[in-house]
């Protein structure tokens, strides 16, 4: 399986999904003009990945800002992991947030409510 890497832009996050390490990183702001268009290839990749993955998977998310349509897409994405988790795959989600950016934690908590996978919230420390 090939690695999925999408460079970050002003309105889209960095996607760094590495099947070799089973580490999936999503980092940056997400408010593309067409969120579905941006997330669609990620859905397909994740579908294929979840079918063949055997090892434990770690997802790392750090989203300073996510607009409504992106959050719908992210929800759809995380639902796929949730489903896989419920079918017995080992998946952990680590969500990083900055205390000063209050909407980050709010957003994370909303996702946490709707998911069953192990969900860890980490406070990002200032340098």
């Amino acid at each position, binding site marked *: 399986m090939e690695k999925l890497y999408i460079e970050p832009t002003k309105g889209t996050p960095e996607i760094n999904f590495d099947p070799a390490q089973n580490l999936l990183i999503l980092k940056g702001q997400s408010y593309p003009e067409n969120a579905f268009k941006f997330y669609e290839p990620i859905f397909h990749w994740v579908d294929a990945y979840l079918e063949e993955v055997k090892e434990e998977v770690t997802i790392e998310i750090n989203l*300073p800002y996510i607009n*409504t349509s992106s959050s719908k897409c992210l929800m759809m994405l995380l639902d796929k992991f949730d489903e896989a988790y419920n079918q017995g795959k080992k998946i952990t989600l680590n969500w990083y947030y900055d205390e000063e950016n209050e909407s980050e934690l709010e957003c994370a908590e909303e996702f946490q409510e709707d998911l069953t996978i192990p969900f860890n919230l980490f406070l990002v420390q200032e340098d």
Partner: protein
Amino acid sequence: MLPKISSGKTAQESNLIYDDSTMKVIVLACLVIFLSVFLTGTLSYSIMEKAIVNKLKSQDLVYIIQSVTTKIDERIGRAKETSLVLAEDPTIVQWIKEKERNPQLTVYAQKKIKNLAEHYDYANSFIVSSLTNHYWAENGKIIDTVSPKDPDDSWFFQTLHGKKTVSLSIDYNQQRKDTFVFVNALVGDLNHPLGVVGVGLSLQDISRQFQNYKFGGNSNLWLIDSQGKIQLSEDLEHRGKKISEFIPAQIEKKLALTGPADSRPIVLQYTNSQHQIMDLIVQPMQSNSWKAILQIPRRENLYLLDSIRLNTITSSVFALILIILIFFLISKKIADPFKRAMLLNQELEKKVQERTQELREKNQKITDSIDYAKRIQESILPSPEKLSQAFSDHFVIWKPRDIVGGDFFWLKSFGNCYLLALGDCTGHGVPGALMTMTVNSILNHLVEEVPWDNPGIILEELNIRIKETLHSKSTESISDDGLDLGICCIKEKQELIFAGAKISLYVKKGEELQLIKGDNKSIGYKTAKTNWKFTNHTLAIEENNTFYLTTDGYLDQNGGEKDYSFGRKRFHEIILQSSAVPLNKQQEIFQEILDNYKQDQEQRDDITVIGFRVGKI
């Protein structure tokens, strides 16, 4: 494929080949070439000049002066020998002793001096006896009897008492316009000489040879004696004059410094009153105390340089023309592709302009279209009059990120009761606006069919109908749209019932701020469950109550130092701090604070904030 370049040249095209910068390069290059050729020429000329002057001073002039002096020295040397041989001839000595009385010896002596003059190239030859004072000349006759009283004969008595075996005396003959050098030898004992014999040389022939050494009409060759008197010159006029008439005084002083006869000649240089550089070379003679001086104007000396200068200039000009010609040809070769590139560039520029124009027109069309859409979207929003009817005081900030947007608000009256809704549909711009139109229409119908004073039911029903409308046909479609909505039902200015789908109601009661959270469920999305019961919150309205509704656009606007979202906390603070202010003023505060926070950042999402009061004020 390169675009085809038309062969017909327009004025503009040909201008392109040699535009300003090309011309500058050519002019600059020509200047550089000219300068370098000029420098090379000047440099080689000056090096040549230096070398030639150097050679002239150290070799040519020295050679000339030495040839001249050697010739004269040789001539005088030979004359000295001849005089000595004559003086030591025993027959002659005997003849003088016998006071020239022996006729046989007289014939011998006559023959001897005659022979010297005739065959050995002497102008004179003579024997003067101190016993008889007879002066025997080369013609074999006594031409004079010397007398101490005659000043013309003083040379004889001076020589006689000079006690020098050989001495020279110079006689300038006015009649013959000739200088004679007499070489006198004493006969017999130095202390008691019997007489003086010798030969006379005319220097006319030497003088004639001077002409051969001359370079041009303005050069001079002089022979001066120890007193600075010109004894010999190729120019007869100079003879007998002082050297100081012909050279500057300071140079004349230097002449006196010339060393002994065997030293090298000295070379002097000065600028005369006509600003000509003059070279002067001085060589002391070996045979006497005279000096030979050669004076040559530098210009004449360097007649060779004139031809070198001419050659240098000719070859420089030739090289210049050749280089410029080659450069011109090369630059033309270079200019050709350059011209092609320029034309190509022009062609592309034109294309870009066309495309830009096309895009501008398309953009204008789209903008016009969206502007029109904005008018339609605005037409579904409640008018200020209607809002004023419903509320005692209110403000609305409605700022779509683009011209139109997904945020909308909605008002419907039922007698003295009002339903106010604030919605935020997914997306912004045109897609968002289309959603608002749909939702607006559904809402309008819906409230006729369900109990209008139950916002929870309205949300629930709206959810079902939107899902039906948006997703009935395309269950497989990946698109998933919906909205957040908050609804307030205001009954008789007494009671407010609120239900929210991810939109909250802020109630300012005096100094307190109450947040009434909507349910954490959106409406219309595929995942939204149709059986969700939205919570109704019922409040009694008090006179000092101010209510606020906002979509997430205001709260999520990025800015500040770290470029984070504005956030709910700051929003709360604004409400708390501006409670005493009339709502139209609060609108300004809300806008100003957000603008300050946002700074140069773009608006991220559609923004809508509504504030209203119901009480009788």
